[in-house]
């Protein structure tokens, strides 16, 4: 598309000279000129020709002079660059014009080589400015997209604590701190019936809106399947088959799913590729929960899962986390690691459950010491009270 220049002058000679001087560029459709004979007509043309890049205007004109026109352009069409034509030595008008946002000026009698240089420079500035605005808009759109991802993630996990204040046999607490780019972490918990509490933690591969959407699908599917009362390994098997169909570009999700029997303290669990949770024994002993060796969900259609059982004594707890915790880095790119996580858990093992979660986050953030958080940090802690 040719660069559009609007020439505003009440005398016809400028129009005549321009159409001669630039006839080659007009023929080759590099430039397109529009003409107006007053400020009023210029504003009409600006409105009807949306794509004007540069305005070349005289100062002295009937109806509306060039300086008034400049002020209006500056206000209404901030992307349009203006060049004014003034009498030689008329410094006061030139100064006023520049103050009102004119990009440059030429003086009468017009030297056409000089005019060409000035117009080229001004067009370049106009195009650069437009490009900058486009880039800025794209950046804003990207940020809004990340905001959408964050909202999906934040709105889908339960955030009311304690979630079951009437239940005396267990406590549960969770916290999630999304990364700037939003990973696909989630957690969930729900009562399957009076005596069974389901609890879940998961992490989707990748980041941004695709990860957030896959996370939302995974979490909803898992809960819907779990509420049928299926044992954990069958639940993961069913969810995997459906997720495999939904998995665009080989997206997958790690999911740990456990069921606590609130009468007996027995926990049945299956693990689809997630970091093994910790068992927090009453008295402060910490151990990793025995693995079940399952594949992440969504990767292969016919994946089977194994379940394991463990019995919690009154005061025992289970601590689940995502790799955003252990892979959090400090300024030297050193990772937080399981070792530091275990040390932190050891220090707060007997604390009030929300404090166990909070203390761990504090330990990670203290370790990171301001280094950017690359991945979501998600923690879920559960305690059996008997």
């Amino acid at each position, binding site marked *: 598309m040719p660069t559009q220049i609007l020439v505003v002058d009440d005398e016809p000679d400028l129009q005549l000279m321009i159409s001669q001087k630039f006839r080659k560029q007009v023929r080759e459709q590099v430039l397109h000129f529009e003409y107006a004979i007053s400020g009023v007509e210029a504003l009409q043309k600006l409105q009807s020709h949306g794509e004007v890049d540069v305005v070349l205007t005289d100062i002295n004109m009937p109806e509306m002079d060039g300086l008034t026109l400049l002020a209006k352009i500056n206000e209404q069409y901030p992307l349009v660059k203006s060049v004014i034509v003034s009498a030689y030595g008329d410094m006061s008008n030139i100064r006023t014009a520049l103050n009102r946002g004119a990009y440059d000026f030429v003086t009468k009698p017009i030297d056409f080589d000089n005019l060409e240089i000035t117009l080229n420079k001004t067009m370049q500035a106009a195009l650069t400015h437009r490009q900058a605005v486009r880039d800025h808009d794209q950046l804003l759109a990207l940020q809004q997209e990340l905001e959408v991802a964050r909202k999906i993630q934040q709105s889908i996990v339960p955030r009311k604590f304690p979630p079951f204040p009437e239940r005396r046999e267990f406590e549960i607490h969770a916290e999630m701190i999304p990364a700037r780019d939003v990973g696909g972490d989630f957690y969930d918990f729900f009562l399957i019936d009076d005596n069974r509490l389901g609890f879940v933690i998961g992490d989707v591969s*990748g980041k941004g809106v695709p990860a957030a959407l896959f996370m939302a699908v995974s979490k909803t599917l898992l809960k819907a399947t779990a509420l049928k009362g299926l044992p954990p390994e069958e639940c993961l098997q069913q969810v995997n088959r459906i997720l495999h169909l939904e998995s665009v570009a*080989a997206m997958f999700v790690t999911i740990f799913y456990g069921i606590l029997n609130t009468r007996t303290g027995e926990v049945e669990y299956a693990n689809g590729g997630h970091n*093994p949770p910790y068992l927090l024994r009453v008295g402060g002993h910490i151990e990793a929960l025995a*693995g079940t060796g399952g594949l992440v969900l969504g990767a292969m259609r016919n994946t089977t899962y194994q379940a394991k059982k463990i019995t919690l004594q009154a005061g025992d707890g289970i601590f689940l986390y995502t790799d955003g915790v252990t892979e959090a880095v400090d300024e030297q790119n050193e990772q937080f690691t399981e070792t530091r996580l275990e040390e932190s858990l050891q220090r707060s093992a007997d604390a009030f459950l929300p404090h166990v979660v909070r203390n761990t986050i504090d330990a990670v953030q203290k370790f990171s010491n301001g280094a950017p958080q690359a991945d979501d940090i998600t923690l879920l802690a559960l305690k059996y009270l008997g």
Partner: protein
Amino acid sequence: MEITQTQHDDLLVVHLNGRLDAHTAKIFEDRLLLLIAQGRQKILVDFSKLDYISSAGLRVLLLAARKLSEAGGKIALCCLKPMIKTVFDIAGFSAIFPIFSTFEEGQAVFGVVTAPHTHN
């Protein structure tokens, strides 16, 4: 992250150097998908100089394995550092990818038995 390639008969070896995270995974994905689109059927990924892999990196490997299997090809991995092997073990990927501890074993599975390899 740095990605280089070497050729051993019809086997293409992709050498990874650095960190394969959410940002660098895209470069790795574009490279692998291009190679597969060009008709490469045998790809060995050399992990000997890779220090970190995130789930985004695992996803790219899974995607490449799917595409290759559709095209009748095969991907294998070799020389994983212990920390990276742990990531594969936890995710269950050790069970679905052919993983070899040495480069020579990795080559052998594609029927390439040759003298020591050279990096470019």
